[in-house]
């Protein structure tokens, strides 16, 4: 089963480039901990999923369509890919224009979107025809800008129309709370509310968390976007690369099937352990029990990384009125990779109290394993959950955007391109409902 990646906007294209490069590096890595035969099988499966193998070419080609309203980033990303000597982007599957969307969601969605739709969908169709079996789409975009968010939303709607039976998984990058784009909260509200109607799942990653991981776990002094994107892609790949449940290899569509059991709940978050610099990795050994225990506490205490987790948060200490302090989820998937995965015991995740009262651990929890090591880590675990933790930043964004909207600030920039006050209101209503739902979990 193959998956097509749709890279939207500057951020989407940078992350896409990094994702394919992370995957390509991983399959060529010699630190794989399995037999040569098994490693080859694994590599072939990965290539089948994410790359085309054109005849008479020394490169494999990423199953990807690239869209941006300006050409600089796409050109750069394509160039860097080719430098790998292993993979590149397919020719003529890049769409760019000359003029960006200027951080304006409405400009992207109302103006650029309809103009570029046919061309982009043609490219997607062409890419789909290269797949023996297409399972779905991974669409990468940021919430803050105009092109990724505005055009991206429009393209996602078009994908949904033309491929009603394929899954669409969105990976969105939540902007820093301050400093990137001033109208980012508007753009984020408009994007998320629309994606919620079209996507099967929205994987949320916060720049603020990623930044912390870079500085505290990876010990990077000057953090660049490339460093951040590497963390994003480590997270994504740790979930997307092949792994098996008790019977078979799970493809991404089945993953979502498990993780999104109810259409009102689509926000996913990924937690990883361990994450460290190559230097520290050399001197570290891990036990599965310790890793999984930490991962569970990260989940309970809603922590983005293993450092500084609050161990006081426990499943037992409910308040008298029955509300809970700890994080809860609708579905969890634990993915373990590396040495001795058979011995990784997941029973810590089978406790009732980790899940919403209307589901059951047997249904809500799945474990996938893969004995082939990932990204140089001898052992590593990822937990992807449909849980409450994205509601904190979501609430923050809705709050900021609502304040701005009630003061009518910047609204003229959106209405100028045809968006109306009602469109804003609809988006607010959708997201307030999402927040409300997750609160009840």
């Amino acid at each position: 089963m193959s998956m097509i990646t749709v890279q939207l906007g500057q951020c989407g294209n940078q992350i896409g480039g990094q994702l394919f490069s992370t995957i390509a590096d991983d399959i060529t890595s010699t630190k794989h901990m399995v037999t040569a035969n098994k490693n080859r099988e694994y590599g072939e499966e990965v290539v089948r999923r994410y790359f085309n193998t054109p005849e008479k070419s020394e490169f494999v080609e990423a199953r990807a369509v690239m869209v941006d309203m300006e050409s600089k980033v796409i050109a750069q990303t394509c160039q860097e890919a080719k430098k790998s000597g292993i993979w590149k982007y397919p020719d003529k599957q890049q769409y760019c224009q000359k003029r960006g969307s200027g951080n304006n969601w409405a400009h992207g969605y109302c103006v650029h979107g309809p103009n570029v739709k046919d061309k982009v969908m043609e490219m997607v169709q062409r890419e789909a025809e290269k797949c023996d079996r297409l399972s779905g789409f991974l669409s990468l975009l940021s919430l803050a800008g105009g092109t990724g968010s505005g055009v991206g939303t429009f393209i996602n709607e078009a994908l949904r129309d033309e491929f009603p039976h394929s899954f669409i998984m969105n990976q969105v990058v939540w902007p820093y709370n301050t400093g990137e784009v001033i109208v980012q909260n508007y753009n984020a509200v408009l994007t998320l509310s629309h994606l919620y109607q079209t996507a099967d799942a929205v994987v949320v990653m916060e720049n603020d968390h990623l930044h912390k991981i870079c500085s505290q776990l990876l010990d990077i002094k000057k953090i660049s976007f490339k460093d951040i994107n590497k963390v994003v892609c480590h997270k994504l790949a740790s979930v997307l690369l092949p792994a098996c449940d008790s019977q078979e290899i799970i493809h991404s569509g089945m993953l979502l099937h498990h993780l999104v059991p109810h259409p009102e709940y689509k926000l996913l978050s990924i937690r990883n352990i361990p994450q460290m610099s190559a230097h520290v990795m050399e001197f570290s050994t891990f036990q599965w029990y310790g890793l999984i225990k930490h991962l569970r506490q990260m989940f309970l205490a809603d922590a983005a990384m293993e450092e500084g987790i609050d161990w006081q948060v426990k499943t037992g200490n409910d308040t008298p009125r029955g509300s809970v302090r700890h994080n809860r989820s609708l579905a969890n998937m634990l993915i373990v990779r590396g040495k001795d995965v058979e011995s990784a015991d997941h029973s810590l995740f089978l406790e009732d109290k980790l899940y919403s009262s209307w589901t059951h651990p047997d249904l809500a929890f799945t474990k996938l394993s893969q004995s082939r090591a990932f990204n140089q880590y001898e052992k590593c675990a990822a937990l992807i959950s449909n849980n409450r933790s994205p509601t904190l930043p979501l609430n923050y964004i809705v709050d900021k955007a609502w304040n701005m909207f009630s003061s009518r600030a910047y609204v003229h920039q959106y209405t100028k391109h045809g968006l109306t006050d009602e469109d804003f209101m609809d988006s607010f209503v959708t997201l307030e409902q999402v927040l409300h739902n997750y609160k009840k979990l």
Partner: protein
Amino acid sequence: MMTQSIVVQVGQCGNQIGCQFWDLALKEHASVNKQGIYDEALCSFFRNVDSRYDDPVNISLSNGKGRIRALKARAVLVDMEEGVVSEIMKGPLRDVFDCKQLITDVSGCGNNWAVGNKMYGGQYGEMISETIRRAAEHCDCLQCFFILHSMGGGTGSGVGTFVLNLLADEYPDVYRFVTAVYPSGEDDVVTSPYNSVLAMRELTEHADCVLPVENQALVDIVNKISQAIPSGKTGKRVYSTSNIKTDSTLTAIDNTTCRDEKPFDAMNNIVANLLLNMTSSARFEGSLNVDLNEITMNLVPYPRLHYLVTSQSPLYVFKDVHLPPRRLDQMFTDAFSKDHQLIKADPKHSLYLACSLMVRGNVEMSDIRRNIDRLKPNLKFIRWNEDGWKTGLCNIPPVGQPYSLLTMSNNTCIRDSFTSLKDRFVKLYKRKAHIHHYTSVDGMEMGDFSSSLESLNSLITDYDQLDKSQGVETLVSRLQVAS
């Protein structure tokens, strides 16, 4: 492909700033583009032409393979007296312009907005429109007009705002950025308050974004710089250009620009740098590009409140003395100090509606984040935009510097400058002094004065109200979900 911009420089001041801008822009590109290839970065402000023809035709971008033949600035030069423009055409930059880009008269506007706007506007309107159209036709994706002029004189303010209206009319989708030099309180032109206020109505109505610059602020900055530079080094150019290689085609033009400093050169240089820094991210690569249209999108919450206070740092680097580069954090601190603002105002003690940091050079996002976190507690932001920061990162620093910072902010402190301008206007207007010089021009009416004053008043009130309420009054509680 990148987008293109056209610079329209009007009047003496506008042309002098423009001239400095082209000079610096060429140097900047020369220091990056050592092979003399006509690339996308150059394309945004320059055409590459075959100058053997009378009406030089474009040589298009050929994916970075084509060498530079002759560069022509995407510019239109307008002045109602000949002096400055003809000096430019005799000077080192003459090859960057051809005579089809110039519009001049001989008699000047006599420091009278009405003469510039109404009389010359009517007389030269078609010609200006035609010249701009020609420049626009050379662009395959025209995104921005930069209009440079002063506010105090007659040509800059009068013809300048005439051009602005014309552009708003004929190119409604192309952004209009105005760099306007405001007169100081002790300006020697008596009618400068009239001209400024009459021009401001047009700026408020028709510009997408105005970058006001005050003469007095420029004078103070220049003085500060000359004090800071060790004696014996005064008179050197403000910005070091020492590490330009001289073997590229671009610098061949540049080599001839060495000349004596004129009194306004240092001041104009600062404004030219403002333009250069603002457009750098649109011209060069960066890990966080800021397209020009993002500036208005992020910094203009209400359509009329589009006046941005700017500051730059570092203001100078020592040319010959090899001092360690200034500490990065100091650069951020400086940019928020009163002394570095291009208008006489103190944004730090007023209310920010929005603020952008445009950083160039070897700086990472984490450096910017650290500095935002450091500065934020001391700055006051409006309630609904407490995180109102926009950042840009351009990899290419200004020539001879490791890094630089341009801040552009929408800050209520601007109303102080406007109020003082209004007061000077009212002082003259009460006595009806010099009014007849204006009303005697065809098409000029008394109503122009009163409506301009009204427009300025309401602008001041708007900023004032935001400053007083801090944006709290309009807040409404969130939507409730019925459960």
